[in-house]
C-alpha cells in the first residue's frame, strides 16, 4: 500500500523515507473482507522529512503533498506474494502539490506499476510512468525517463523489500 507514496517520493528525492501519510480511508477497507482496496491515500512530508527534502533539493523544495486513489485487488497481491508471481496494477493517477521557495506547483503523473515476486521478495519492479502534467513538456519527459530508468526501479525494489521485511516483523 505504501508503494505509491514511496514511488512518488523517490521520484522527487532519491532514497526518501516516508512517514506522514493519511491512511484513514484505506485502513478500514484493507481490514474488511472486501476484495478491492479502493480508497484515497494522501501523503505529506513531516517536520524531519521537510528538512531532508529541503537539504536534498538545495533549499528549493519546501514541502510535498500527494494524493492518489488506490485501486488494488487484494487477492491479486496476496496471490502473487504467496505464489511468487507478478502483479500488474491498473493505472493510478498521483497528484502532488510542491511548495518551493516562492511558488507552488501542481504536478500530476500516472503510473501503472508492475511487480514480480521471487524467492527473496520483490525481484523486479517497473513503475511504468505514463504521463506527467503540470510542468513543461521537456521536464516531464526527463521525469518519465528517470522514473522508468533502472536506477529508480532498483531503489523502489529495495524500498519495497525493506517494507516487506519490516511488515513481516510486526
Amino acid at each position, binding site marked *: 500500500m505504501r508503494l505509491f507514496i514511496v514511488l512518488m517520493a523517490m521520484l522527487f528525492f532519491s532514497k526518501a523515507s516516508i512517514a506522514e501519510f493519511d491512511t484513514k480511508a484505506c485502513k478500514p477497507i484493507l481490514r474488511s473482507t472486501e476484495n478491492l482496496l479502493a480508497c484515497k491515500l494522501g501523503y505529506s512530508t513531516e517536520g524531519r522529512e521537510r528538512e531532508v527534502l529541503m537539504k536534498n533539493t538545495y533549499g528549493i523544495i519546501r514541502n510535498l503533498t500527494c494524493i492518489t486513489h488506490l485501486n488494488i485487488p487484494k487477492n491479486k497481491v496476496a496471490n502473487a506474494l504467496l505464489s511468487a508471481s507478478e502483479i500488474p496494477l491498473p493505472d493510478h493517477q498521483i497528484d502532488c502539490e510542491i511548495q518551493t521557495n516562492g511558488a507552488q506547483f501542481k504536478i500530476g503523473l500516472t503510473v501503472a506499476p508492475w511487480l514480480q515476486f521471487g524467492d527473496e521478495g520483490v525481484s523486479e519492479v517497473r513503475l511504468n510512468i505514463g504521463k506527467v502534467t503540470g510542468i513543461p*513538456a521537456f521536464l516531464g519527459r526527463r521525469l518519465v525517463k528517470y522514473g522508468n530508468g533502472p*536506477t529508480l526501479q532498483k531503489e523502489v525494489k529495495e524500498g519495497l523489500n525493506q517494507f516487506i521485511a519490516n511488515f513481516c516483523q510486526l
Partner: protein
Amino acid sequence: MRLFIFAVFTAMLLTSKASLAGIDKEACEKVFRSTANVVDCQLSFSTDAREREALMKNTYGIIRNITCGTHLNIPKNQVFNALFGAGKIILSPHTIDCEIQTNGDPFKIGMTLAPFIQIGDEGVSEIGLNIQKVTGLPAFIGNLVIKYGNSPELQQEAKKALNQFLANPGFMPQ
C-alpha cells in the same frame, strides 16, 4: 548545477560556438549545493589547450588565450520556479572581466550583461543576453561587440546551447 551560462555567453561572444573546458567552479558548487538561496560566488574560466588552438585558428592567429571571471549572483528559487512554471528568469547585471592574450600584449576587457531567459514547453524559448556595457576597448569596437552580442544570431546560438545543456543537465538525475 552548471549555471555556467555566463561562461558560455562570454565564450560565444568572443569565439563563436566555443566549448569551454577549464572552469573553476569549486566556490559556486559549494554554494549551489547548500540551502542558501543566492548562488553568490566567484566563477572563473579559461581555455584549455584544444580550445586555445581553435581560438587561435578562428582569430587568424591573433588571440592566443582567454581567461574570464565573474561574480555570480543568482537566486536559485528564481531559476527553479521559472523552469517548473515555464516562466521568465531575469538576472541582475553581471560583470564579466576577461584577459585576452594576443600575439603581443594582453588586454583586459570587461562587459556587463543582464540576461533574461524565457522557459517554454520545450525548454528555453527566448533569450536576451542584454549586453549593456563593454570596457577596455575603444568605444567603436565596444559598440560592435554590444551590437553583435545582442544580435538575433547570437541569442539564437545561446538558446541552442542552453537547450543542449538542459537536454543533458547535471541538475536532474539520469
